[in-house]
């Protein structure tokens, strides 16, 4: 469960203050499929970074599973990114010298997952994105679509509750783009909260809930409470809190 209220983010550019976000209120129940659209400069990437705990709002409140995260320190934010959030980027962000397997292993290294467990999870993740045969390939030996599949497998390997996708099809042809969208929608049907940032209406329009941003404000919010909003709120709520407790201790 994501609850944003009055989120603002101001950047200082020279002696000018740029308001990338100016008072965003947004509540996303668990398991929702949400797209954030808007022209460039509308603040959608900034919003995604704040949702992903990569950036902190200048003001406002961000409660993730009931816990206020806007004021957490770096280490606590890292723990949230590690356990609760998976990222998929436009430019894939695979480490070029590492194989598909090793790229998928990365988040588990930081989380200290045991090697045996890692192997099992990598196998499962590769299977679920249909790349079991490409496990030992490096990114430069993979097609764009395959790279994004590896990135998705990496995002999912820690079994996060939220998947954040920033223009996931922006660097792909329409065919592989379509496959990627289907893949992450499949994950959403499995219960994960899916938030896609895009300026491509054919991608964003597929989401059950469609939020439009302009000038750092929400200008429209369609489909909230619709069929895509069905969710595993009951299932993931307590689990999420349990995760949070572990993070705090580690």
């Amino acid at each position, binding site marked *: 469960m994501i609850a944003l209220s009055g989120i603002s983010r101001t950047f200082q550019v020279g002696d000018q203050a740029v308001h990338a976000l100016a008072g965003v209120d947004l509540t996303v129940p668990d398991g929702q499929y949400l797209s954030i659209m808007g022209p460039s400069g509308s603040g959608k990437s900034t919003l995604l970074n704040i949702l992903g705990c990569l950036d902190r709002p200048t003001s406002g409140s961000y409660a993730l599973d009931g816990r206020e995260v806007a004021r957490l320190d770096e280490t606590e934010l890292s723990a949230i990114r590690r356990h609760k959030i998976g990222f998929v980027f436009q430019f894939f*962000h695979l480490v070029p*010298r590492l194989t598909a397997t090793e790229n998928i292993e990365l988040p588990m290294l*930081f*989380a200290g997952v045991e090697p045996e467990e890692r192997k099992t999870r990598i196998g499962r993740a590769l299977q679920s994105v249909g790349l079991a045969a490409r496990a030992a390939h490096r990114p430069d030996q993979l097609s764009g679509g395959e790279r994004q599949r590896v990135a998705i497998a*990496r995002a999912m390997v820690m079994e996060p509750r939220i998947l954040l996708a920033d223009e996931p099809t922006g660097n792909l042809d329409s065919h592989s783009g379509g496959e990627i969208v289907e893949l992450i929608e499949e994950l959403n049907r499995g219960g994960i909260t899916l938030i896609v940032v895009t300026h491509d209406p054919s991608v964003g329009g597929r989401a059950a809930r469609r939020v439009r941003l302009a000038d750092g404000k929400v200008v429209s919010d369609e489909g909230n409470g619709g069929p895509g909003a069905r969710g595993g709120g009951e299932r993931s709520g307590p689990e999420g809190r349990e995760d949070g407790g572990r993070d705090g201790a580690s």
Partner: protein
Amino acid sequence: MSAWDLFRYTLGALRGHRLRTWLSVTGVAIGVASVIMLTSLGEGARLYVTGEFSSLGSNLLIVIPGKTETVGATPLISTAPHDLTVDDAEALVRQVPEIRRTAPIAFGTASAQVGDRSREITVFGTTNDMMEIRGLAMGTGRFLPEGERDAPVCVLGAKVQRELFGNRNPLGQMVRLGDARFRVIGVTAPKGTSVGVDLDEVVNIPVDAALRLFNRTGLFRVIAEVGTHADIEGARKRAITVLAQRHGEEDVTILTQDAVLSTFRKILGILTAALAGIAAVSLSVAGVGIMNVMLVSVSERTREIGLLKALGGTNGQILRVFLVEAALISTGGGLLGLAVGVGAGQIAQQIFPDFPVQPPVWAVVAALGVSIAVGLLFGGIPARNAARLDPVEALMRKRA
């Protein structure tokens, strides 16, 4: 992040830019190797000098005619008002209980002749006790006869025997030294150089015969052997008193091995430290090299660092990734340098077998320790830069 994962990940990163890695590893290796090699030479010089002196026997007193305050160098020209005599040497054995035996030495050069072969040769005039004191072994025959100070006999060094007699048996043959003739009664076993004198190239004759040969009344010096090393200082004091009584004044200098040795040790110790200091400069240069490589590595991998943060890597974990990377470079360089330094020492040892080339333990430990410390120190700033990167900016950075 477990230590093994950390190691594997950073090793992968180092492999990613092989040439750069090897260059900085080489930088550290040169620094460490030069520390090892230079200190090996210094330590070798110390061991060499120490070895030379102890081959003389470590519980010896050397009595030199003439009063001097010098400890390091022995005065070669005697200006003593009284000669040092064989009687003095015998008195020392009688009157100083710590002294077990003494050997007088008269020293000079003479031309030695056998048949038509002749050469200039170093002649030691001494007594039978010399053999025990200097630890001489006989190759054949026997040493100078006991109690006879003027018999016309001689004992040849191994090399002298070869040069004057070739393969012939020298025993019983006559050798002409200056105007006198001496019968060969023995040949010493090869012993080599001791404190600048090649013992294989001398001829030993009875002391009184030598004094007459060189037309002298006083000895070159007297060597006294003390029972145990602990008694050296007491024996020295008592010997000075005994000789002062006999001569009516204190006109001899008595050196102990320790005094000479400790002076040499001090000088060579300072030399070694100075060499190590010079070599340490190259280690710190290597440190700057590591820093440079790490700064490049961090700026080149900004996007990767952003990604690692997005994947949940903490600042501490990212700091460690880059610190370990720097430490691997410096440790690798340290080990390589150690191998090269020791290897070069071994080769030098093959070329100069007499000179002990051996890196001192402290230098090995310090060179490795310092190289690792240099890596952590100079890798620290780039690693901290990496850990402090803002993940959003880092992820958006264009490909380098």
